[in-house]
């Protein structure tokens, strides 16, 4: 996607700074530049800042902050296992780009090669596509979407694809594109709830509490839990959803903290017997070394139910009075947490489904 170099108007700057970013960001943004507004509300600081002329990096800083705060990113992924020897997913992608095998309305950007923390190659790409939706005036109007994705090689035939989703259709769009351009023998593996038995699904969420993040983080709390009923319906809307109340959540929280398996929790047992399946859980983790807290949502979503992760909340406790302050993670930090959680979930999933084969 071409970068937009539009210089925002005074009103656009004022609106974004007063309505679409947190006050802390606006205060910090001004302070870093040597401007201190005392006794000022956020909209007053926004108005003052909007009077200044900024360079590109300042505009991007504001835009990124507003974008992160206002869009809900989830991480979804799948594995691509080819029968071809020395299969290269980046080469296939470039071929699709070059020879125009993508669908109308799809734009595939050039891949960028980077290195991860283990010095392995990661290929970063971006895809734009169009989807029809009901318009206000027209019957159908095209809605443009775009998302980032990452290719990483696991072995000679296996590539891992991670999709930074803004819409739930994003990862399906990429998966379909690749499926249409690979041979029949190619396997596409996701974390698919249908491949887990009811007990395995409970075990899956149970294990995520202790293994979802790395050893720097420890489980603190369950903030949200959802069960859904209606396995046979093709329509997600028709499923009956049960949001678990605080009284049962505290029991589940205690069970996890004490290392008791969730499958032994009376409420979980009762729900399963009534035909409900675990579909999502929001975990709160505390960092062991720094005063940081993160809440991550793990959810099976869509039809078929594919696993997604998202960061719901992040905070840092600061100052002599230990005040907890919510922070907006950078897009890179946010993506790193979602990716780590998703990859650990895949390991748990692989272990559980191995038993089924």
């Amino acid at each position, binding site marked *: 996607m071409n*970068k937009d*170099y*539009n*210089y925002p*108007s*005074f*009103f656009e700057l*004022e609106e974004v700074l007063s309505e679409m970013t947190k006050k802390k960001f606006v*205060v*910090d943004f001004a*302070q*870093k*530049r*040597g*401007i*201190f*507004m*005392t*006794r*000022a*509300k956020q909209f*007053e600081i926004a108005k*003052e800042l909007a*009077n*200044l*002329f*900024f*360079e*590109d*990096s*300042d*505009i991007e800083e504001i835009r990124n902050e507003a974008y992160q705060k206002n869009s809900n990113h989830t991480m979804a992924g799948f594995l691509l296992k080819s029968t071809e020897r020395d299969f290269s997913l980046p080469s296939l992608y470039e071929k699709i780009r070059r020879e125009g095998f993508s669908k109308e309305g799809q734009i595939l950007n050039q891949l960028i090669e980077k290195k991860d923390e283990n010095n392995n190659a990661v290929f970063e790409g971006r895809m734009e596509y169009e989807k029809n939706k009901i318009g206000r005036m027209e019957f159908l109007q095209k809605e443009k979407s775009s998302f980032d994705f990452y290719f990483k090689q696991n072995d000679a035939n296996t590539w891992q694809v991670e999709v930074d989703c803004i819409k739930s259709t994003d990862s399906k769009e990429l998966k379909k594109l690749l499926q249409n351009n690979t041979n029949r023998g190619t396997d596409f593996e996701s974390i698919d709830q249908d491949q887990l038995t009811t007990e395995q699904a409970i075990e899956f969420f149970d294990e995520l509490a202790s293994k979802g993040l790395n050893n720097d983080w420890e489980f603190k709390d369950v903030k949200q839990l959802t069960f859904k009923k209606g396995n046979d319906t093709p329509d997600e809307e028709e499923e009956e959803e049960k949001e678990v109340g605080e009284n049962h959540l505290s029991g589940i929280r205690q069970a996890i903290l004490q290392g008791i398996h969730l499958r032994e929790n009376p409420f979980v047992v009762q729900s399963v017997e009534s035909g409900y399946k675990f579909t999502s859980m929001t975990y709160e983790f505390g960092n062991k070394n720094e005063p940081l807290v993160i809440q991550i949502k793990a959810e099976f979503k869509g039809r078929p139910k594919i696993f997604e992760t998202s960061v719901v909340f992040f905070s840092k406790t600061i*100052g002599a009075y230990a005040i907890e302050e919510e922070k907006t993670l950078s897009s890179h930090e946010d993506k790193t947490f979602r990716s780590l959680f998703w990859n650990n979930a895949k390991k748990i999933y692989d272990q559980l489904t191995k038993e089924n084969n």
Partner: protein
Amino acid sequence: MAEDQGVNGNMWNAEASVLFKKVGWNKIADANIDIQGFDNSINGIDTLMKYENPTSSSIEQGVFLEAKRYKTSSFQKQYLQKWILNLDEKIRKLKNSETFIDQYPEMGVTDARNGLLLIWFADIENYKPKYFQSLLDTIELPNYRGINSPNRIFVMDNQQILRISSIIDSVNSWQTDHPEFRFRFYYPSFEKNLNPIERKNILTLEYLYSKFIFAEAADKNNLEKKIVFYFGELNIHSFKRLKNALYKNSFIDKEKSLTLFTYKRDDENFRKIKPDIERLFEDIEFKMKAMIKHADLPPWLKNF
């Protein structure tokens, strides 16, 4: 002594007001004055200044200027927090004080909510801009309760002081080379103010903290030249963004030449992208020049 008080401190105080007089500000009061606040407290102020605001014809901006001169070795980070809060408190007590307004009626008719803390680190060989920058991040403003009457406290250290000196010298140099042209800073219309476009030899606090400044020069035949002073990064993304801003403010005009002054230096990389930047502006008569850059206070400030 930690702060360079006495002769050096007073001199810096005087130099500070000379600096701002050169960008169109007027001095209202002599240095080192004690004034009674609305609560009868006595408040020491270095200098009172004001300037006409070209974007708002109704009111001038009043500024409480505090000049500090320090050596980096004796500066402690808690001073910055203290100075900012003290200056804010002084403004709060004085701007609505009857004694103050009686004593300085010129300030009484301004929007007197601006504090300017001007810190000069005299041992420039030890001064590190990144260190001071990191201190700005650590300042914590208290949660104020009660009457909401915001003040604006601006902090400048060596970097900004030298930048202002650079603007002054670059303008003077350009003017010397173009004696038939009359140079002025250009203030576009702001939709919210519905103010007409203005051209003045004044630099507002907003412009002093901006990454680019518009200017214009005209001769007696009304031949106009457009000038922009740019303080941002020298990469192609930044210039594309800048071009869009110039375009929206009618600074891309086939009949008016545009001179773009750049402040930052990155000679090696800049040489590589200079042809691309020139291509961005190929539809008009376009020139790029480097601003005069100072490593220390210029002679005209030291020897005024």
